[in-house]
């Protein structure tokens, strides 16, 4: 975790370019056919259960099985790899970029993600806190919960199979929670952000500074 934060530099960076550039890649091999073009505005996933798909970006066809790929974020298509249109592409190929405008909350989250120790989801599944951690959170709040490597902090639930998830990382307190019970988290997405207790004032300073200076 960084001790020194150059707030001015970080904030001016976000002021000059308040966007995140999201690279859209193919999930598997197949023949690609674009359905969105540069400067198209795209919607992300919406709906009460996050069930309404975003704007259709492209079709990926493998063995006559056409998979529609939708945008997961709101934004504007900033670039498209036109040379790939109609071509057979490999898995993981970058096919377009979406420029996503960042809100204040997202900027705070992104800065914090650089300074917190992030604990990622080991598999695509639903997660909930281990029972004793949840009861401590209910009683005292998440920021009073100290965890250390080897602690069973979460339960991963996938196809009605519950797997305890053991924390590996720096000891500290649970500062940020990036999942909600019942929400499916993709593999690698951060579940929680941890900071050591002595770094807590620094984190609070970041939040206060962004809140005060960002319009």
């Amino acid at each position, binding site marked *: 975790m960084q001790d020194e934060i150059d707030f001015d530099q970080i904030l001016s960076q976000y002021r000059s370019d308040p966007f995140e550039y999201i690279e859209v890649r193919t999930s598997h091999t197949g023949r690609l056919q674009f359905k969105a073009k540069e400067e198209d505005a795209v919607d992300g996933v919406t709906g009460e259960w996050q*069930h*309404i798909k975003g704007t259709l970006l492209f079709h990926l066809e493998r063995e006559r099985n056409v998979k529609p790929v939708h945008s997961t974020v709101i934004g504007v298509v900033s670039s498209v790899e036109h040379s790939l249109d109609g071509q057979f592409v490999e898995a993981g190929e970058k096919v377009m970029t979406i420029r996503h405008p960042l809100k204040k909350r997202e900027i705070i989250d992104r800065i914090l993600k650089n300074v917190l120790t992030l604990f990622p989801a080991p598999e695509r599944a639903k997660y909930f806190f281990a029972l004793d951690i949840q009861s401590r959170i209910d009683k005292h709040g998440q920021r009073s919960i100290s965890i250390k490597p080897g602690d069973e902090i979460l339960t991963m639930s996938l*196809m009605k*199979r519950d*797997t305890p998830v053991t924390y590996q990382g720096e000891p500290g307190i649970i500062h940020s929670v990036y999942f909600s019970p019942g929400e499916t988290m993709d593999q690698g997405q951060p579940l929680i952000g941890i900071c050591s207790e002595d770094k807590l004032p620094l984190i609070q300073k970041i939040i206060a500074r962004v809140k005060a200076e960002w319009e």
Partner: protein
Amino acid sequence: MAESISERLLISTEYQQALYSEPLLRPTVSPEIAAVILRYGAMVGAEIEHLSQAPRCMDLARSRILACEEENRSFASGRVIIADQLTNGKGRFLRHWHAPVGGLWMVLTLVNTLLPEHAALYSLAAGIACCETLRHYRLNATIKWVNDVLLNGRKVAGILTETMRGPKGGEEYILIGIGVNVNNASFAPELRNTAASMTEFAGRTFPLAEVTARLLAKLAWNIGLLHHVEAEQLAAGSGQSDDTPHPLIASWRSLSDTIGRRVRFGFNVAEAPQFSAKAIDIDNRGQLLMRLDDGQTVCENSGEIVYL
């Protein structure tokens, strides 16, 4: 927690016979492939422990694993612990599980060697094995997603699957707890309309050792099938199960009455129902696809449903 050796021997003998007959019940599978599948599933029942009573088989399995690791011994994958009755049976979310004499209460412990996308299907495999066991006795059992087994809409078998990481070796163990209401017919008042037993529906009792052996053989088959499909896909150059039709999913569809039903979904549906929808299919990863009233589709990989 006295061990009943005679009962264990009886189950082992019946199990060998059930295993032998398993390929004969599946005429669409060639004898060569059936032999391969059963070889993969052969670890099921590698050791069988039978107890007259236990608090909870899952907890016992955990303690057996820990004891093995403490002594630097390998745990036998496929070890089965069976108890005639449980004094502290629990289901998901620590719901009480009534487990008196007459039922089949067991845990199967496997060392997980499957890739994650295939290991995700352990729960379905266990549900299919239970349902096939009941159908073997000509009971019209069906599966409700994920793996509840029902007779005429009432739950006759429940499965609880948990993972445990060995503290010393770091091995991942899959604990599949299975409860089947076989000859037990009395239920707590709050369960009378929702629980059922085999004996109630058949009007006769069943030889418990034989039912146990039959279930173990079905588990050996379906878990063996998981390994066989994984090996086939890896040999074909793909570990993914997205596009290739999975025979286990086909089995599940043929045994389930979920597809086409209107359901209420929730991660813990009894305490926190989330939405109502129509179940339209399961995908190759066992995820349930549902259509909401606004026409949109949701795909869930964990949670519970109740039929409406």
